[in-house]
C-alpha cells in the first residue's frame, strides 16, 4: 500500500497531554487494518509526532497506546475493527 493510501476500518484517534500538542489536533479519523498501520499513517499525517513520540516507522517511543480505553497495546499487529478508539497519551499518566 502506498503511503497515504488508506484501507481498513475507520478508527478514531484521540491525543492527550503533550502528544496532543505535538499532533496539533485533538482527534483524527484514520482507516487502518492494524495498530502498526495506524501509527505509520499518524507519522505521515502529523509530523510533530516523530521522532520523539513515534519513530519514523511508527514504532512507539514515548507514548502510551490504549485501545478502546481498556487494552494497553504492545502487539502492533493487533487488528483494528470498525469504530475502534485509539488513545495516545504520555506514558507517565499520573504524578
Amino acid at each position: 500500500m502506498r503511503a497515504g493510501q488508506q484501507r481498513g476500518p475507520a478508527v478514531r484517534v484521540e491525543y492527550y497531554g503533550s502528544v496532543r500538542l505535538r499532533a496539533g489536533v485533538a482527534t483524527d479519523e484514520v482507516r487502518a487494518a492494524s495498530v502498526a498501520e495506524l501509527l505509520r499513517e499518524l507519522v505521515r499525517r502529523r509530523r510533530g509526532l516523530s521522532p520523539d513520540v513515534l519513530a519514523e516507522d511508527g514504532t512507539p517511543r514515548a507514548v502510551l497506546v490504549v485501545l478502546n480505553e481498556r487494552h494497553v497495546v504492545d502487539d502492533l499487529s493487533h487488528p483494528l475493527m470498525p469504530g475502534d478508539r485509539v488513545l495516545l497519551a504520555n506514558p507517565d499518566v499520573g504524578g
Partner: protein
Amino acid sequence: MWSCPIPVGDRAERSGCGGYHGRYLVVDLARAAVMVGRFEEATLRAVLGGVGLGTALLAAWSEPGLDPLAPDAPVVIAFSPLVGGPFTTSAKFAVVAKSPLTYRLCDGLCSSAFALAGKRTGFDAIVLRGTASEPALLVITDTEVRLEAAGPLWGLTTTVTEQAVRDRLGPRYEAMVIGPAGEHLVRFATVQHSGRHVGRGGLGAVLGAKRLKAIAVAGDARCRIADPEAAGRLARLLTARSLGPATEKYRLVGTTANLAVLNRLAAMPAYSFRSSQVAEADRLSAPSLRAGAYAERRSCAACTIGCEHRYRTPEGGAVRVEYESLFALGAACGIWDNAILRRALARCDELGLDTISTGVTLAFAMECTRRGWLDSGFRFGAADRLVDWIEEIAHRRGAAGELLADGVRQLARRIGPEAERLAPHVKGLELPGYDPRALPLMAVGLAVTPRGADHNRMTAYEADLARRGDRFLATEADVVRLVELERRAALLDSLIVCKFLRKALEPFYETTARMLAVTTGWPIDADELVAAAERIVGLRRWYNEREGWRPEEDDLPARFFEEPLQTATLGELCLSRAQFLRLRAAYYKAHGWADDGSLPPEWLDRYRIGEIVSRLRGR
C-alpha cells in the same frame, strides 16, 4: 525567647564521606536545649536521607504510642546526600512525623531553597521536640539555634508569613511556614515553602501544636563532593535528559494533562466517587484551563524541568494548578468553573490546606447530604460557596469548620456505619484522584502504603498502565511491578530526586547508584541500592506496626467492592474483592512479609531495622 550556641566542637567539620555532614541537630523547644548527634556511616548508607533517614530518626526519637499533637511528639526535617550538589531536581527536603490525620507515618516532601539553606546549617537532619510557650519562629544557623517570639505572625497566611520572616531576618534565610489551618490544628494542614507544600497528612498541624509558625535556616557549612568531575559529567547528562521526551508532559502541560486522559480511561473520580467518567471534565482539561488564563511556568530551585504551570486568579494573582487539586476541589465536588477553582486553590495555598483532603472531605459531606445523612448546606456544584467553606475549615469555624476540619474518617464516624462504609480514605488519609475500580493494581497500592491512601509513595497507577493487554485482568504476576515502583519511589524520596525525573534515570539503579557514588565516594552498586530501597519500604511499615497498625488497615472502603461505577465507554466497573485479596497477598509475598502483611523477625533481621533505630536511639 531563647538562644543556644552550637558548641564549637559540634560545628561543621568534614565528614568521612562526601554529601553528608554526618551530624544531626535535636532542638527541644520547651527546655531551650539543643544537642548534636552523629551518624555512623553504616546508618547513612542503610537509610540514605530524606524519608529513609527521617523515618529512622522519628522512630528513634519518639516513644511508641505518642499522640501526634502531644508536646513530646517529634517532627524531623531530613535533607539528603544530593542536596547542594550538581544534580537537577535534588533541592528537596523531607518532613517526617506521626500524622494527626492517620496516626501513622507521614513523610512529606517539599522543594526548593529551604533544602539548600537548611543543609548549609551543617546538619543532615533536624529533630524538633517539645512545644514553644507562645507562637514562635525557630531560627537555625551553623552557629546557633534561636527561638523568637512570633505573635504578630500568628494568623497570617503562608506567603505573607514567609515574606515577613525574610523581612525580619534578611534574604539569606529561607523559611518553611504554616498558615491559619496549621494554627487551628486542622488535621490536613500543610507546611509551605516558596509556594510548594508538604501537602498530605497534616504536618502543618504538628507544627501548629508546637506553636511554631515558621522555621528559618541559613548557614555556610558545605559538604564536599567525592568526585566533582564525575558528578559534573553525570549531572550534565541528566540535565540534558531532563529537557527531553522523558519529562515532556511536565514541561509542556504539567500534571493537569492527567485529567482528560484519566477521565477517558474512566479512572477520574467525580461526585465523591459516584462517577469516574463525566462529560463535564472537558471544562477542566488542560486546553480549557489554558484558554485566557495561563500565566507562566516556573521551576523549583536547582530544577531544569519546570513543571510548575501557573494560571491567573480572578484577583489578579497567579496560582500553581495540579491535577490532584482539580480532581479534589473540582470533579469530586461537581464544580466545573475553573475560575472559581483557581481562586479556591489559591486560598488553600494561602491558608495552608491540603487541596486533596479539603476537596475530598467537602465532596464526602456533599454525598452524605445527598443521601440524607447530613442536614447541611453542602451541595454538589455549589461553586459560589466553595471559597467560604475553605475559609471555615482553615479557621475551624462555621459548619464546615466544625464538621470537616478533622477529615473524612472523623466525619464518617460522627454520621455512623453507613457513612463509614462509604468514606473515601485509607488509614484516615483521603483518596487521591484515581478510582480503584478502574485501576486494580492502584487499588492495592492505595490500600497497603504506610501513609494511607497515597498516590505518591508507590505510583501504582503506572503498574496498571504498564500492563499489556486488558488492564482489568491484573494477576499476581503483575504485582512485581508494584513492588518495583514502590522501591524506586522509596529511593527517589530518600536520595532525594524529583519523581518527574524518573523516566530520565534509566537504567534506574545503576544511574542512581552512580549519583550516590560520585557524591559520597562510597563504592555503592545497584544491588546495594535495591536493598536500601527495600529496607526503607519496610522501615516505614515497621514504624506503623510499632504505632499499632493492624492488618485490616490495608484495605479499601467497602463501597469500592459493592457499588459499581456506570461508565459510558466501559460499562459497569466494580472492584472484585477476590482479585484484590489475591493481588494484596501476592504483594506481601513478593516482599517476603507474612500473609497478613506484618514483618517477620527474619525480614527485620536481614535488613537490620531494629539495629539501625537502636543505634540512633543510643546516639
